């Protein structure tokens, strides 16, 4: 076996050591620092320094002060994830089952938008959704949007931006699990008189659940922490938790509150991830 080859039993450790050290030093230790920072005395500042006072009240304070953007972040991220799931499933399904020899090309095209900067692409949406742009004008002409109606600086624009930016994160895992689905199972369902619709809901969809879960997590988590879309496409009424954390760090220098808020976000997400994996792992996946 491959595992037993290699010079001596220690080789694995030596190969792993630099990477593990790096992640320990610059990923695990920072997390410890963040926990510590979230418990700093809120009276401190970057000039006077911070005292470690185990100030757990920081958490209560930030949740009381910022529960609105916190809640909004999860709400927007959930909406964007649902939109990504619908668009992404159609695209992944088309690539896996209908693209034929165009499969590889279409996959490359899914990743290609990543090569233009995230910020520039998001700014481009600002132009597409602009108040005198043709989308707004057509919607006004059709009466869907009032004469004073606008898309920019609304929750719609922010959710649309999030959907756009994180769509590839949804498509790739969905494709990976759809591509593995054995076509014979779908044919068998057809042979047993299942309609294509029924075959999809009873065979294809359940088999693609690992991709749905992975895609949902990969979309939801970065979307909940993002603040680029809400800053560029929204207004202060659409502020998400990332905007608040960033602002607390760089403009207000309130490191204790920023740390506590950052940890709060992480804790909620971790609980959500563990819960959804457990739930799906035991019920829907089997």
């Amino acid at each position, binding site marked *: 076996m491959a595992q037993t080859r290699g010079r001596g039993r220690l080789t694995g450790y030596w190969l792993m050591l630099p990477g593990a050290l790096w992640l320990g030093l610059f990923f695990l230790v920072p997390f410890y*620092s963040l926990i510590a920072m979230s418990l700093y005395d809120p009276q401190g500042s970057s000039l006077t320094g911070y005292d470690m006072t185990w100030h757990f009240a920081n958490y209560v304070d930030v949740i009381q002060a910022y529960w609105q953007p916190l809640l909004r972040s999860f709400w927007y991220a959930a909406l964007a994830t649902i939109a990504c799931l619908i668009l992404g499933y159609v695209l992944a399904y088309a690539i896996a089952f209908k693209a034929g020899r165009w499969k590889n090309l279409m996959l490359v095209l899914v990743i290609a938008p990543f090569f*233009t900067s995230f910020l520039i692409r998001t700014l481009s949406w600002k132009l597409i959704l602009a108040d005198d742009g043709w989308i707004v004008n057509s919607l006004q002409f059709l009466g869907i949007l009032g004469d004073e109606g606008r898309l920019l600086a609304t929750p719609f624009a922010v959710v649309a931006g999030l959907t756009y930016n994180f769509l590839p994160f949804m498509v790739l895992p969905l494709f990976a699990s759809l591509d593995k689905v054995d076509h014979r199972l779908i044919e068998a369902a057809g042979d047993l008189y299942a309609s294509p619709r029924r075959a999809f809901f009873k065979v294809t969809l359940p088999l693609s659940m690992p991709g749905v879960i992975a895609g949902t997590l990969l979309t939801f988590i970065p979307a909940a922490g993002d603040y680029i879309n809400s800053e560029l496409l929204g207004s202060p009424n659409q502020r998400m938790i990332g905007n608040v954390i960033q602002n607390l760090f760089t403009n207000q220098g309130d490191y204790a509150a920023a740390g506590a808020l950052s940890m709060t976000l992480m804790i909620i997400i971790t609980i959500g991830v563990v819960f959804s994996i457990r739930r799906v792992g035991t019920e829907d996946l089997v």
Partner: protein
Amino acid sequence: MSPLHKLGRWIGDHLVLALGVLVLIYMFVPIAIVALMSFNDPSSRNVYKFDGFTLHNWLNPCEPAGMCSSVARSIEIGLLATLVATILGTLAAFALVRHQFAGRGPLNTLIILPMAAPEIVLGSSMLALFVSAGFGGQLGFWTIFIAHVTFCLSFVIITVRARLSGLDDNLEQAAMDLYATESQTFWRVTFPLVFPGILGAALLSFSLSFDDFIITNLNAGQTVTFPMYVWGVAQRGIPMQVNVIGTAMFVIAVAIVLANELSRRRQAKAAA
């Protein structure tokens, strides 16, 4: 099957594909706009529409103050972070696939975690470390570099690991059977086979580093990378040259990917 059924089937088949292509087109709309705006001749600075065609932006890409230096800074950081992340990540991937050692399970989890945490949390935890270690005043090139290696490392390990575990063991055993030494086997057989994976990981790593804003912004101090430059001008009106950089990046990256794909196909053909 009745003709009507056939028609229904044909529409069903092609409808999904058509919808899929529509979603793909949607993904490229903003990029088309960026490319279009790179030829825009704006009448005022804060305008968000196409006023007239010009090559001026392409011929004078470095006109906006500070933009090209920010691009250069991003390239520097990207290359350096990619180099370090690719080396450390490739070694780790070999360890994880080819060697049995204690602690592999926890290590596999440790690798996924940086990708699972939201960027704002990852960024603020690093800032917390730098501040508590007394580097709060020295944020800049090196703190950005450290942050970028950290988030690229996981992606490199996972990409190379996938390539390595998909490798056919028999090729190496055949080489050994033909009396190749261990290092000959590695450099003549294993490494060339893994190399496309390493190259892919490096490309991914560079584009992640070049594009990162959220983590960088927290750890950058006074250093300005290209995304930070774009963020700064987004408030005041964007010089059209930003679109030139965006378009050029896209074209270069797609060219690299296509060249890679072509050479892979040629190799596959030659091998067949």
